[in-house]
């Protein structure tokens, strides 16, 4: 069992890295001090997409410093989402081995725990977004409108949900082939 789990990990990290690396790059770009001349790192493109600058200016607050605070908030949001995705995807990649799916007659029972774990993962992503964007942790969250909050939640759920799915497909496909819903239908399954 342990050997199978260890064999799982390299493919799991490859899967996680496909979207995990862009996520880390995004986090780094948000943590770099804001500089108007930068295009990606330390730029204000995320703030321009989601921040209500009209509200910021109405309150008399500075655009630059508010962008900096917003970037920090978004960085922390993505760090937390990355941790959640990592925990759930690794949890399923390892935990699915204990379901003995490869044994005859067991495969039909994996569907329910898969759906529950995946739903919990998506739910956790939504909860993390709501905590960061609506609680009193970051004052700058007040300048994110309801529409923008909804958009951030949807984008996060899709991006980190996809990251979770790719990570668990690659992590579980070889050792527990059917531990991911629809994985056995993938055209590239024979290469894994």
């Amino acid at each position, binding site marked *: 069992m342990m050997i199978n789990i260890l064999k799982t990990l390299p493919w799991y990290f490859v899967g996680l890295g496909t979207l995990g690396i862009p996520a880390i790059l995004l986090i780094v770009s948000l943590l770099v001090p804001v500089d108007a001349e930068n295009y990606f790192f330390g730029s204000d493109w995320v703030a321009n997409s989601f921040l209500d600058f009209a509200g910021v200016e109405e*309150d*008399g*607050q500075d655009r630059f410093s508010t962008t900096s605070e917003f970037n920090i908030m978004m960085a922390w949001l993505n760090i937390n989402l990355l941790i959640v995705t990592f925990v759930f995807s690794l949890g399923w990649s390892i935990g699915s081995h204990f379901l003995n799916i490869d044994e005859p007659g067991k495969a039909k029972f994996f569907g329910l725990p898969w759906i529950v774990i995946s739903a919990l993962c998506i739910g956790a992503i939504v909860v993390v977004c709501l905590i960061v964007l609506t609680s009193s942790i970051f*004052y700058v969250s*007040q300048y994110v409108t309801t529409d923008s909050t909804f958009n951030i939640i949807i984008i996060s759920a899709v991006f980190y949900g996809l990251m979770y799915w790719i990570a668990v497909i690659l992590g579980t496909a070889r050792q527990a082939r059917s531990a991911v819903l629809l994985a056995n239908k993938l055209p590239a399954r024979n290469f894994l």
Partner: protein
Amino acid sequence: MIKFNNFIIIFLFFFASIVNSYAACLPTDFKQPDIPIKTSVNENLKDKVHVWYDSSLSMSGFTKSQSEEVNLFRPILNSLQQASQSLGTETSYNTFGSRFQTIDENRASLVTTQEFYKCNQSAQACVAKDRINGFSKVLGVAKKNTDSTIIIVTDLFISTSETLAKNAEKIKKPLGEIFNNGQSVGIFGVSSSYNGKISGIPLEDGLGYVTYSKATKRPFYIIVIGSGENINFIEEKLKKNQKLQDAIAENPDTYKFTMITSNVIAENLNTNKKIKAKNLTNISSQSEGYKFEYKDNLPIYEFITSKSNFELKFDNSNFIVPGSSGVAEYKIVQELWSLRGSCKKNSKWGKSNRKNFISVGDVNDDTLTLKFFEEKKLNWGLRWFLLAEVYTARNGSSTQDEFKDWDLTDSDAANHMQSDPKTFKTLNLMNIIEMINDVANEEFKSTKVASIAMNFELEK
């Protein structure tokens, strides 16, 4: 010893830093609002008083006894003379109507007797003079004596021609200057027994005037031109008259009063520091970080709160002239700044462009209520500094309608006389009162009521 001195110096440095930190916690572009200079009320109370008696013949009817009705003319005029003596440093007495002249105290003391109104000219000449009230002439004198209080005792029986065109201008022009000088006009009406001849009643066809002598009751008027405080002083003195009190108890319509003014604000609330900590009603003075202090007569409330809106309440009696029409509408000049982070020297405050974040509660209440951020809430996590300057935008409607019962229009005069009334009304009364009110509204000037600042930290 040297160590102790060093300790004292360090202590003083830190103490000075703490004290100075408050001064540093103001927006850099904040400008201290102008606050009216303190004026002494007593100074206003001790000016010259000019009393003008209407010497027309019809006024003599108030001096004769009348068995059916109570005579209030004599007791009220006695009270008025005492009040005018108390009010000013010097009192002068004058007559208008049939005779326009200054009289001495001995002659003035006869005002409640028939002798005072005796016309020594021919009967025809006396009746002709009696039709001219001369009210506008008195106003002309009043406008020149802006530091004096003018008291006019009259039946206010003014012919229609005196309220029209050029004659109306003769009344309006001095009134405009009177109101422009910040003075008010108080009109007291007292219904008293009457036993005389009322002349100058226009005929229905407009071809002449007739007299009426069957009236047993008729109102006379005391018009006081001066500061609101002085008018209230006279009112208080008159109301203390026992005979008037008894008459009011029997019939409340015996006495009517209205004050017409272009400025109903008695004093700015900042001038005598009448704004207190308790005026901010829903923030406890015991709460953390609460401080209330005046900075050059500007009250500043400093506090930490999680409440999204709050209220300031001021008792109207603290700033509105008692008995005046009050304020129907306020204008609030409002400025708001925000600061992210702690309040230090050189902190960069940002000027907010939020508008209309302060609203005024019901103006008909006895209190002026200022409601802050009721419609759009402020964002937490910031320190806010606001400056509110409250001005009057429109005076309230005066209580002039109370006098409508005693008004007699030119067209109704003949009919009124034919009905043999016991109580005779006053010709063109509402014309005159409305004219005074219109002039006051024309001369209305926005007056600053209060300036208030708040410096608070808003938590979630």
